[in-house]
């Protein structure tokens, strides 16, 4: 009984924290981007400009929720929900601290890969349902981009899975007691990080919404909270991928002195900052460059990483 209560409390806490964190990240990203560009950013409303989050939320809720007459309504309405659902569901498998995991699944990694491959649909369907050529172009780009980067992401994680000998995320964290997987799996980490950029379609890989070419890409026709869901969904997936990078390569909640949860939060926050710094620093590559880089460079590298890791593990065990 107490187990069920604990799980319910955990689910409620995770949902609350993640959703608020997504709002908080709006402020973090704006302030941090500004600081990186030698500006100050929003600092007027409230202490450090923190109330800008409240202002943003009020604004986005009270805007007119305009559904254009030329769109495919059911798909148009369903698309923004998909990203929220898939990104939030993926948090079920993340171990925040020893024992504090909602779903201690033996195929956790596979569940995450499956959910992230389902997450593609939000962009594709939004792009198609908008009945707008720019949105459609964004959706098509997204389909191709996420489809290819999905492959590398799965392959790069296989090295970690081989070392840990399990698809269970808690087991992966436990397997890093002797040493974090960033050392033996550095190539895998780089590939996973690049794939995460492609999956979350953050800059520099934001082909599907490239403002300068496609207006706003797949969410051109969206307004009000439907746009807000894309916006928040992006931040949720950034948080998710940061948490997963922490779990897979940086020892999850492992660390000295501080409590496990604190270590987890510190590492995750670090990766979120890296995401934002990359956004400030790097220009957007051309569309074909992205794919040439993916298929001609990352795919062989991921395969090589997998083969070498597997060979070493076999050699050690024999």
């Amino acid at each position: 009984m107490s187990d069920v209560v604990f799980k319910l409390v955990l689910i409620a806490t995770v949902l609350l924290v993640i959703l608020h964190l997504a709002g908080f990240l709006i402020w973090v990203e704006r302030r941090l981007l500004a600081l990186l560009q030698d500006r100050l950013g929003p600092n007027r409303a409230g202490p450090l400009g923190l109330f800008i989050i409240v202002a943003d939320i009020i604004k986005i809720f009270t805007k007119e929720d305009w559904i254009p007459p030329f769109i495919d309504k059911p798909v148009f309405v369903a698309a923004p929900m998909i990203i929220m659902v898939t990104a939030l569901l993926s948090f079920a498998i993340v171990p925040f601290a020893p024992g504090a995991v909602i779903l201690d699944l033996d195929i956790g990694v596979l569940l995450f890969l499956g959910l992230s491959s389902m997450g593609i649909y939000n962009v594709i369907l939004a792009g198609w349902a908008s009945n707008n050529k720019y949105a459609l172009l964004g959706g098509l780009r997204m389909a191709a981009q996420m489809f290819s980067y999905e492959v590398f992401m799965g392959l790069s994680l296989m090295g970690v899975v081989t070392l840990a000998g399990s698809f269970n995320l808690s087991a992966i964290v436990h397997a890093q007691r002797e040493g974090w997987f960033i050392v033996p799996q550095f190539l895998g980490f780089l590939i996973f990080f690049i794939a995460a950029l492609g999956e979350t379609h953050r800059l520099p890989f934001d082909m599907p919404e490239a403002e300068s070419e496609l207006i706003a890409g797949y969410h051109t026709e969206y307004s009000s909270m439907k746009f807000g869901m894309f916006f928040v969904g992006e931040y949720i997936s950034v948080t998710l991928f940061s948490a997963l990078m922490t779990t897979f390569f940086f020892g999850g909640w492992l660390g000295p002195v501080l409590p496990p949860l604190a270590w987890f939060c510190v590492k995750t926050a670090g990766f979120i900052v890296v995401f934002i710094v990359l956004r400030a620093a790097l220009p957007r590559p051309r569309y074909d460059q992205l794919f040439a880089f993916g298929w001609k460079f990352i795919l062989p590298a991921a395969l090589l990483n997998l083969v070498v890791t597997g060979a070493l593990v076999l050699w050690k065990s024999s």
Partner: protein
Amino acid sequence: MNTVFFIAAGVAVISTLLVICHSNAVHALLYLIISFSAVAVIFYLMGAPFVAALEVIIYAGAIIVLFLFVVMMLNLGPVATAQEKAWLQPRMWIGPSILGAILLALTVSLLWRGAPTAAGGAEVGPRQVGAALFGVYLLAVQLAALLMLAGLVGASHLRRRELLPESETKTELLP
């Protein structure tokens, strides 16, 4: 467990029917995604979580994306929807549905008589799947890999022949 199975099975059957009957290609594909997800749930219930995950990743996540990609490229408008509707006349679907009904009756009668243990078998984890693939069925896996490699090389070759004239002009332009 049984209720979950029947719900998932019902969802799968209904969404698959809708895939066949829907006049809008994209909507039909969306129902196909739901159908695959329901089938994945059934796999999970039957003690094959690895297959369930692969079902979602590969079929629902990747193959349907390609389908959607093509449908989006074709840009089927309301005209295509009307055409599909015109095709859904009784004389078109009556033959296949009679055959389908016979199959359904066979399945139901088989289940009624007490089929071999379907649900609740031993759980098949990733380890067992891997052992089977690279142990007993090693030859088959390698043959399939060869087939896929052939497909890959073929696709690359076709693309290259198409590109050739363009690349020639490019080299001419260079000093």
